[in-house]
């Protein structure tokens, strides 16, 4: 109740924390109310216990997962942008590539991990590649859509100056698509984490994926959930980082 008495600005600032608090409350509440046993779905307190007790290994594995993800994601962004530009700029490429991209992305990327292991051994490289493979598609889709739906009037502003396709792309196409590019980053970063973790569960000696698998095979669900929480927290950190950049770069589009 006292939350409602705060200034709207303060409310906005506290919003994410309040939401997290609420979620934790609901989580613990449900678990208790339904009497879900710890080895199926541990509550907040059990998970927090595990997190505190194992904070050192969890932090170490999280760090590994974090960097793996960031690298895979970075490659995904670059490739996604490139493919998005290719697919979005030419009707022919749009028709040719889109079905294939959809087909490729409907395949669970876990299926590729064993193949990657053969070529790169277990560990960081397959995880990076998996994170990349899983995360580039949303970026392609939004960049391509942004470019394909660019208003011809805006393009004309540059074309009338004799601008080359590249100029049109960089001065109008991409800036115009920026809000949706950032939107796709939000999806892509979550997928990159999923990719890394999945790869780590199949082929790694470290990382949160390994931790979860290791804890899982010992039936230590609170520790598994501690791993999940670690992923979530890292994803939120990345989100805040992108939100910050987005805020600076696409303020013009969010002008309410």
């Amino acid at each position, binding site marked *: 109740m006292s939350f409602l008495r705060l200034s709207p600005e303060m409310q906005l600032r506290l919003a994410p924390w309040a939401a997290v608090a609420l979620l934790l409350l609901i989580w613990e509440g449900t678990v208790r109310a339904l009497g879900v*046993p710890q*080895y199926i779905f541990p509550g907040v307190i059990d998970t927090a216990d595990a997190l505190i007790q194992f904070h050192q290994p969890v932090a170490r594995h999280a760090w590994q997962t974090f960097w793996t993800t960031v690298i895979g994601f970075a490659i995904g962004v670059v490739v996604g942008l490139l493919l998005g530009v290719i697919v979005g700029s030419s009707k022919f490429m749009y028709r040719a590539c889109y079905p294939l991209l959809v087909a490729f992305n409907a395949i669970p990327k876990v299926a590729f991990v064993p193949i990657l292991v*053969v070529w790169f*051994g277990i560990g960081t490289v397959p995880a990076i590649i998996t994170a990349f493979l899983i995360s580039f598609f949303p970026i392609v889709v939004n960049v391509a859509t942004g470019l394909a739906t660019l208003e011809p009037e805006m393009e004309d502003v540059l074309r009338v100056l004799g601008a080359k396709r590249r100029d049109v792309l960089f001065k109008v196409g991409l800036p115009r698509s920026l809000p949706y590019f950032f939107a796709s980053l939000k999806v892509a970063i979550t997928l990159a984490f999923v990719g890394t973790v999945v790869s780590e569960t199949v082929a790694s000696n470290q990382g949160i994926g390994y931790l979860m698998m290791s804890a899982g*095979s010992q*039936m230590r669900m609170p520790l598994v959930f501690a791993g999940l929480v670690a992923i979530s927290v890292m994803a939120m950190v990345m989100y805040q980082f992108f939100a910050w950049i987005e805020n600076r770069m696409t303020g013009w589009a969010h002008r309410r």
Partner: protein
Amino acid sequence: DTVDIDFQLDWRFEGPSAPFLMSASRGYFEDEGLDVSIDSGSGSAETINRVASGAYDMGFGDLNALVEFLANNPDAPSLSAVFVVYDGSPAAVFAKKSSGIEEPADLAGKTLAAPSFDTGRRAWPLFARANDLEADSVSWDSVDPALREQLLASDDVDAITGFYFTSLLNLESRGIAEEDLVIMPFPEYGVELYGNVIVARDSFIEEHPEAVSGFLRAFTRGMAATLEDPDGAVDYVLERDDLVERDMEVRRLKLAIEGSIDTPAARENGLGAVDMERLELTIGQVADVFELEDNVPSAEDVFNSDFLPDQDDRMVFPD
């Protein structure tokens, strides 16, 4: 000059991987002029693929999967088993006493849960045949390895198959005590399959035969020390993975030793050796139940005993 060996375990760093990790940590491999790097695995069958494909030089994987691989891929780069670790298959059937199941015959008409790659499930026809049961008198639910114990605990299924030392511990952590369970380990119920073995790629064997011998010598030392002091051996597991629970891995290791390593046959012939007759027999059984048609390998194709340490050195079991 040392020889590098990339070694693939069957699974996570758990109690049963203690002898490998101990040999590495204590420098037994170094003493043999080897630089061994050990990676965790994602299944004892997957190990075969990873060694065959060249991602790893040697590994710890399932002998029956090796047979299947050799039969299915006659043109692929070959690999051989060089050392038996689990003389008996760790596969077992678990049921709750409360379900009224007491012996294999009671399983008829029941539902069992196991992953489709589970050794116990794949070798089920052998178990059934050995116990006068129609193989297709049971139905199966295909589930993730970690899920089957849950389904048994919550009575969603009547029984499960799984590795003895894994499923028992998982069931215990769900509050089901050993005495509330009916456990039918495959070796005790007439299934003579071997379990996990050390495999090496043939091209690696050709290139570094002495390295393979060295590896097995060092491993035997590690195994001897492990059998001597299982509790201490688990230290080396914790060294690699500080997340595992010590007590649980000690128990797991002891169960593995008890059920699959320290068997009468192993005590008699020494650790690591294979009984060619039994191997021939089980290859035939595997070919039968796995429906391998052509190219079924001979016992010599599957097991290469050239690198076993001297038998005396392999008589490592404490009294």
